[in-house]
């Protein structure tokens, strides 16, 4: 009997890191779709096993890596190529280093906690099974995203995260508002994800590879050095930053985040308190070496972060609902992280992410306690409005404070402007194109002119610009 050598062992643990959520997802999913919906206890057992193995592997691998090298702990696990063309290979490789290790561990810990929480919270809910499938889909995606060794694989994880996020926002699909909010998040993701796609293509173009290792990885995180010059680094980094803006709800892509609170509390905590919202930060951290050589990209990140921090904290200050308040506070903190990245404080950002994720999870899960805290535990007496806001706000006149309050209440018309200036023109354009196409078809086929009255645009425009809706009562209440 021979002991496996260290590198085999670490590869084994790396598998233990990436596979559990996928395996649980496939097993439960195929069982549920092909045979029958499993019982709550069965689902829980699989989820428990998944997170136990995952956490165990993380721990083991962490120790192993630190033993291997205290200065540069990292491994690359390659599973070969998915496909290869002449100058191009779609590599399937995982990269475990301090950055991705921390994020993977964070995902495992918070995912496991939320899994346990949800077992109780979702009990007897008709969507119990669906919820857990989405939870596994999300953790799989998030894990893939952070462990990916190449931008291509990261993109795959990125999309899984987006997909599960949208489906969980619309979890209560029998009501209209969750579906509308999910649509809004979906469109925002789609638009900003093109940045990621463009960035990936450009990375291929300039670096001739998608692997982080070969693009900017002579030494390891956070010390990597870019193999690209300043120009190329900027051209590659800027679209990727745009990609990160969507998922991190950075200004001006912020509107979907408070709306995302339509899902069950536990998924709100998991996605928008803890993990998904930090995916953009992870991407920027991964791009560290590129940013190192591109001051323009850093300025861009800093500006976006600063704008978000100011926007989020101002609107958050006037928000009078528990989850909305946390959504704005979260986006503001993520904005602060972006500023920190712009300033080159990579390690601090990592600490910030971990602390922030745990705190927001805790706060979001506890939002229903606020009534108790305020009224019965007596916090309200301390919460007297007169006691707050003397430091910065005191500098402004009443008039100015009033204006700021009014603007913050309207959320600075951000979403209205987007709807009016972007969404509606785009839809109008689509409508014109559709008519044009109809005419063309009529011309070519000699058939009758397409039905001019059945247009798709107005309905979808209405659906998109619909922001909130009252629960059914009174909807179009007939007189």
């Amino acid at each position: 009997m021979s002991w496996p050598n260290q590198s085999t062992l670490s590869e084994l643990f790396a598998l233990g890191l990436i596979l559990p959520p996928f395996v649980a997802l496939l097993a439960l999913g195929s069982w549920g779709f092909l045979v029958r919906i499993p019982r709550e206890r069965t689902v829980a057992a699989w989820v428990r096993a998944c997170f136990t193995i995952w956490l165990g592997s993380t721990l083991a691998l962490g120790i192993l890596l630190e033993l291997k090298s205290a200065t540069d702990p990292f491994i690359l696990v390659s599973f070969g190529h998915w496909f290869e063309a002449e100058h191009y290979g779609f590599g399937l490789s995982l990269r475990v280093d301090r950055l991705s290790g921390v994020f993977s561990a964070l995902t495992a810990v918070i995912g496991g906690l939320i899994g346990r929480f949800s077992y109780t919270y979702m009990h007897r809910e008709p969507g119990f099974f669906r919820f857990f499938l989405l939870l596994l889909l999300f953790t799989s995606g998030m894990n893939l995203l952070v462990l990916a060794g190449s931008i291509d694989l990261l993109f795959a994880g990125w999309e899984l995260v987006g997909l599960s996020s949208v489906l969980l926002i619309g979890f209560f699909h029998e009501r209209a508002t969750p579906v509308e909010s999910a649509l809004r998040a979906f469109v925002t993701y789609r638009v900003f994800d093109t940045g990621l796609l463009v960035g990936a293509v450009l990375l291929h173009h300039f670096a001739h590879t998608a692997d982080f290792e070969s693009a900017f990885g002579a030494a390891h995180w956070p010390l990597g050095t870019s193999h690209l010059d300043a120009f190329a680094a900027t051209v590659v980094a800027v679209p990727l930053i745009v990609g990160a803006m969507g998922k991190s709800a950075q200004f001006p892509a912020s509107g979907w985040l408070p709306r995302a609170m339509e899902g069950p509390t536990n998924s709100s905590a998991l996605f928008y308190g803890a993990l998904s919202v930090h995916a953009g930060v992870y991407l920027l951290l991964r791009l560290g070496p590129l940013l190192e050589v591109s001051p323009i990209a850093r300025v861009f990140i800093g500006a976006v972060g600063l704008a978000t921090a100011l926007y989020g904290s101002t609107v958050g200050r006037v928000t009078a609902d528990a989850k909305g308040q946390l959504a704005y506070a979260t986006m503001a903190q993520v904005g602060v992280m972006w500023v920190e990245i712009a300033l080159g404080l990579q390690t601090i950002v990592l600490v910030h992410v971990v602390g922030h994720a745990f705190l927001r999870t805790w706060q979001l899960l506890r939002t229903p306690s606020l009534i108790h805290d305020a009224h019965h535990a007596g916090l309200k007496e301390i919460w007297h409005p007169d006691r707050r806001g003397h430091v910065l706000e005191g500098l402004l006149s009443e008039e100015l404070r009033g204006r700021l309050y009014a603007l913050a209440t309207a959320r600075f018309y951000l979403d209205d402007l987007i709807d009016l200036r972007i969404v509606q023109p785009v839809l109008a354009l689509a409508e014109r194109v559709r008519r044009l196409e109809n005419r063309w078809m009529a011309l070519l086929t000699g058939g009758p002119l397409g039905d001019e009255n059945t247009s798709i645009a107005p309905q979808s425009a209405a659906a998109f610009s619909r922001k909130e809706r009252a629960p059914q009562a009174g909807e179009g209440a007939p007189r």
Partner: protein
Amino acid sequence: MSSAVQQEGPAHHPLLERLVRAVEHAGHLLPDQGPIATFIHHNTLHAFQRLPFHEAVLRAQEELGGEPYWSEQNFRSELHRGRIDLSDLEEAFAADAGSVRQLEGEPLLAVGLPVVRVREFCFLHGLDAPGPAELRYRIEEGSLLLAPQEDANPEAISRIIAETTDWMDRLRSVDRIDEFRLRLTGSSDPRVAEATTRARSGGLHGLDELWRARHSDVAREAAAFLALWQRSFELTAEIAPEAVPSGDSKVLLIPREVDLLVDPILSRLAKKFLDEGLAYWPMPKRELGLYRAVRWLAIRSAGWPVPWLRPLIEELRDQERQGLGAEEAALRAFQGMGIDESELEALVERSLLALPGWAGLMGKLERSPAMHPLGSRVRLVDYLAVRLTYERFALEHWRSSENPARAGQQVSHSDSSEDRHLVRCFRMFRLFQLGGVSAWSAASLSGEAVRRTLAFLARLDPLTRRRLFQEAYEGHYRNRILSAFAQVPRRAAPEPRAQVLFCLDEREESIRRHLEETDPAVETFGVAGFFGLAIEFKGLEVHHTQALCPVAVTPSHRIEERTDVRDEALHARRRRFLKRRKLAQSGAFFASRGLFRATLLTLLGGLLALLPLLLRIWSPRRAAALAHWLDARLSPPPRTVLSRQRAPDDTHEGLPVGLTLAEQIDRVAPLFQNAGLTRNFAPVLVALGHGSTSRNNPHESAHDCGACGGSRGGPNARLLAEILRDPEVRAELRGRGVFIPDDTLIVGGLHDTASDEITLFDLELLTEEERGRLEPVIRSLDEARGRNAQERCRRFESAGPKVSPQEALHHVQDRTEHLAEPRPEYGHATNAVCFVGPRTSTRGLFLDRRAFLVSYDPSADPDGAIIERLLGAITPVVAGISLEYYFSFIDPERYGCGTKLPQNIAALVGVMNGHGGDLRTGLPWQMVEIHEPMRPLMIVETTPGVLRQVLSRQAEVREFIENEWLQIVVSEPDGRTHWRYHRGEFVRWTGPKSPLETTRSSAEWYEGRSDHLDPAFIESGVSAS
């Protein structure tokens, strides 16, 4: 348009008066729920209480859009589960005063279908037709006519097929294909017949092919149904179509698109205006009222990016210049809309009902200003003014924009006479199929019989059937419970060793039963949980006061919890500690939501959140215990006393602090007289108030004591014990006929209905001997609460199938403290019945936590004064609880607040769904999910004569009963004669009696069963005498 207003002056404008009245009127339709921290159960449809129940639910459906009853599908599954029998439906049918009784005679007897069978089919299968389009589709697709419907009776189907076979056999002998054609398709033309057959069989069969294959089963079955359809078609063709009520052409005053623009803004403004301190920045100028505050803000809001807001801001600026009030602003908005003046009331109602939650809260706070820090500055008309102003400009915007959706507004579809024929045909066809009537038997029916049958089916429409189902459902349970009451053996109680006063709450039914089973020498009583002491209570560590009495009562005295003089030093330390802790908590709260402080906090301390996360999620019970231990360790709370004795000149905000001796007697004496406990006091008397603790639950207060106005009844119990311990009080009480011996030991306590903890107060005051006397009672209470937890756990799937009392206690404690637990307890979900009478009448009866039990001794109340007082006090409480559960259950979206899972705290006054929208009122689904929706049944042990007197004097009770919001039965003190009060008369209840099973203990009865249980007689609950 506004010139008229200004010329005549606002106060005298007739429209203005109409507007104010309209607001008042519409205000009554809105939910009557206050801020959620003090949840008071009330009849959801209180606005319609003046109407009879069945009429009210229909009116409410019209006005508010809520369901009137449970769905028919649900009722049917109750029928299959045996919670309704067909005989109950027949009984309900016979008793119904509605339109269904008009069908007399038995029109289908000619084909062997008595009317009772027709009714049965209606109830079991509905016999409703889908829309004509769907019908056509199903015919063409072949699923309707080629096979029997899923719910058909196989026996009936085989009869139809057998008769068809006979006919076909006869035809064969003469080879009459033309007859075959005619009977199956109504045409003897071969080509038409072929085409019709193909069309009706989804293209699967042709007529000739069926004829050729006439020996096969497939062809026979197909022929049977095709012929039956054809026969139904012919029979229903000649019927003169009934006058179809012309659909109300309701005018949409304001299109939905306008609400989509306005609702989010209004909900955001209302939330900020009513915020009790959640947002870091309070809304400026809100002390001016909503309208003026919004005006002030809007003028400063730079609305340039949104086109329709620009004229709105101009208008508001103009209104500010003119110094308009809310009423005038509302009127001006209305006049600016270009809607006919006659529609004013309709528009006001519509606009207020658009977001009923927020508007309702505004109205509620206007009526009860003490509920909110803004007090009298909250006015519904302010809200209306803001809403109408926004609506006006949104409407203008909508009108001016090229909006293709407008064309789609007036979609109308009218049924053609052909469609109606199709529907009639389908109903007849279904009826024949269910009844096993073939095309040949049906031939004998007269046109008159068919017409009457169709008329009957039309009258027994879904709403009527649901009404009858509802009556039958209630009737079934009523029969079960009355038969149990009539049979339960009554045994004389022995000399009691201890007596325990509980709240009349139905959740205490089980613990009382378990206590009596544990120790048969314990006697229990059910009284309103505020123990007659209507107090405003100020706890030592609580900043605000609570009114501990039913909502209908105003507290007459203030009671303060004060530090025991011996513990002054401790108290000072504790106060500093609490203050610092609160400052730290609220500091962290706002800091973590800010910018700079939040950065520091998350960077340096964020990781610490992992600790409570882990602890709270993995073992909620231990985490809570740890927190308690730490709390007591860091700063032990001082001993306290209540300010019972009134000190001269001690008042607080107009309320006297403490009670004088006479006042104490005045309040305590009726308590015992009502309960029929005036002599035979045991050596130990315990008074247990109740409340409920749950973590992470915005609706926590809805589980507290209803008789204490949605708060915990501990202080009342403690005060009662303190009063009764006073020898002077006992002496005075004797003068009032309440003979409490000098050495009776009296202790107050609190039962937590969620965690099943029992806390007894002031035990350190007891002597050694008293402690010894109390010891066995404490042991029994301990045992009883364990068993009570066990009985509750049978309802909790996650508790597992078989738990010991100890495990059950751990389970319910976990539930209480669990952050993720949406159902810490099931609250009043099982309530169904209220019994007013001595415990001896119910002792030993397993009532499944479904019965409010009010102690009352009819023999001590010959003139009915006590029962009048009792019914006047408890009827609104019981009806409020029960009806709120009813409505929240049958329509969780309109009347209830839906599922808890996405809920979000708004402004610290209520919950919303997710990110925005309306404030949700009513009860969440997780609280009511195991409810059986029925109107409460009151069983009062008295005589019909006395009850009649009570009804004539108590208007509110009369309204509930005469309008059938609750059912009432008089049980004569012998326990064997029952009178049901029905439409002004007392009708003797005669059965049916189901046997009352006897078991040894409650646990034996419920073990392994999780659904509703029938009453049973528990032997160990009554001592063998």
